[in-house]
């Protein structure tokens, strides 16, 4: 029991955060391109676009209105409503990164998460098996690829 108490005391480290700086977003949408490639099977940009099926959906959404634009990803909320709404716990918090991620295997495509996400940051991917698709902060990468490849540092990563 004691051991467990100690574990609990170790404060969970929060996930890194992607900060959005709309004043510098050019609207080039390379974040979407890079996200898609990163989550593709081959991770090869040309194959990912030209030969792969089903293609992943980008976990980043670029919103545009006139000259204002910004790239929006899942905020990995501390109190994530999608975690509570998920019927299967496919939506879960990654133990290592603390990112909110969707386990495609468990996801049944009920879209409860889409209903509750105030950012509209979860997409339906219906190309193959129906699954909720969203930002996973590029697990395994030091910096998410959307941030790494943003030509104008309009999104930056804070660990």
């Amino acid at each position, binding site marked *: 029991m004691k051991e467990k108490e100690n574990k609990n005391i170790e404060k969970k480290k929060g996930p890194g955060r992607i900060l959005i700086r709309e004043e510098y977003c050019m609207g080039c949408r390379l974040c979407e391109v890079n996200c898609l490639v990163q989550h593709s099977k081959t991770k090869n940009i040309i194959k990912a676009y030209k030969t792969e099926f089903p293609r992943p959906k980008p976990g980043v959404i670029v919103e545009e*209105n006139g000259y204002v634009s910004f790239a929006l990803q899942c905020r990995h909320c501390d109190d994530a409503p999608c975690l509570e709404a998920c*019927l299967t716990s496919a939506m879960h918090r990654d133990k290592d990164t603390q990112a909110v991620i969707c386990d495609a295997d468990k996801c049944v495509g009920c879209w409860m998460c*889409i209903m509750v996400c105030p950012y509209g940051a979860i997409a339906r991917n219906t190309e193959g098996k129906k699954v909720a698709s969203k930002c996973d902060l590029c697990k395994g990468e030091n910096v998410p690829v959307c941030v790494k490849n943003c030509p104008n540092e309009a999104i930056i990563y804070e660990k």
Partner: protein
Amino acid sequence: MKNKQKKYVIVGNSTAGVAAIEAIRSIDRAGVITVVSDEPYLNYSRPLISYFLAGKVSKDKLSFRGKDFYESNEIRLILDTKAVRIDTEKKELVCSGNKKVPFDKLLLAAGGVPIIPPLNGRDLAGVFTFTKLSDAEAIEKYVRSHSVKKAVVIGGGLIGLKATEALVALHMSVTIVELADRVLSAAFDKTASSIIEHALEKVNCRVSVNNTVEEIEGRAGEVKGVIFKNKEKVPADLVIIAIGVRPSISLAQGTRIKINKGFLVDDHMRTSVRDIYAAGDCCEAWDALLGINRTLAIWPLAVKQGLAAGYAMVGSDKKYAGGFAMNSVELCGIPTVSVGVTNPEGTGYEVLESYDKEKPLYRKIILQNNRIMGAIFVGDIDRAGIYTGLIRDTVDTASFKEHLLKDDFGLIRFPKEYRKYLIDKETVAI
């Protein structure tokens, strides 16, 4: 070092109970938690039983917390045991077989029980309700051992339609009988309902509205058909009764716990009796949109209520902020979301609508004083949560109202300050 270990007892093993366990264990690792459930299973996701029946999800995938959940949280499980009575004085829960479970803190989270009308023939073999895994398993077993081609589903609500969808997947032709003038009358408006009715017809289902079943007919103890109110006889090899659920409250009858339809609770999910809490479908908690206490039998709120109850049981001050009605359901391949007030009554409401009958795509937004009160999405539900967020935060939409129905509606239309607040703040609650 420690005070005496607290005894937490939870009635119900679904999402509210599980959420309460997680809340309790995030603070108190030492207390003894006992879960009493009248079902023989570990946790499973009730909304998924239609997926299970349709063969889309296997039984082992129904669980929403892993098998080690109970072990790692050190839970005493008392399964297949009905909680019968509460002795509020002795602080004991009396279960079937006169088994007594003492508690310091008790959570009532047994959910709802299906309403079964007093119909002749309701006890025939082949007549089922559809709220629990045992129902789905029984149906599956019955279907395997009988030649089932025609089914009647009594009730065109959410449960009825999800059951219908599963039966269609099992190659049955289904007749849905609905008392109201349309299916999904609680969450949908006429247009949205008509889209679903149309889609149901396409998959060989018949929808009979303004109608009800008067009698279930059988032969040799097995269901053979139903007789409608209008005396029409419809053959049926299987009948599902899905006219609704009511809160599971029977164990508290005769105690001082205040009950309306469900247990009345405050913002800490406390019932009127000290140390007894309620959460989920069995309670009447705060509806933030309507400003009243009422039952809202939906998954995300059961989680929130379970968490709030759990925190309250360990003495933490985290409150239940209230919730409002919402549902996401895909029917006949058409995704739908309905949130908040969808059939406004009275004046003062403004309705924005767009409808493309061909696709079909339907969007409806209900406003009051420029604040969104409810929304329906049929066909395209992408980013529907943004509207849920606007309802939650009671945002004045005057400055961007004209964009609400547009395909590309998003955070970019929000006033910059609200957008920054939404994007940069740490926590979000719905």
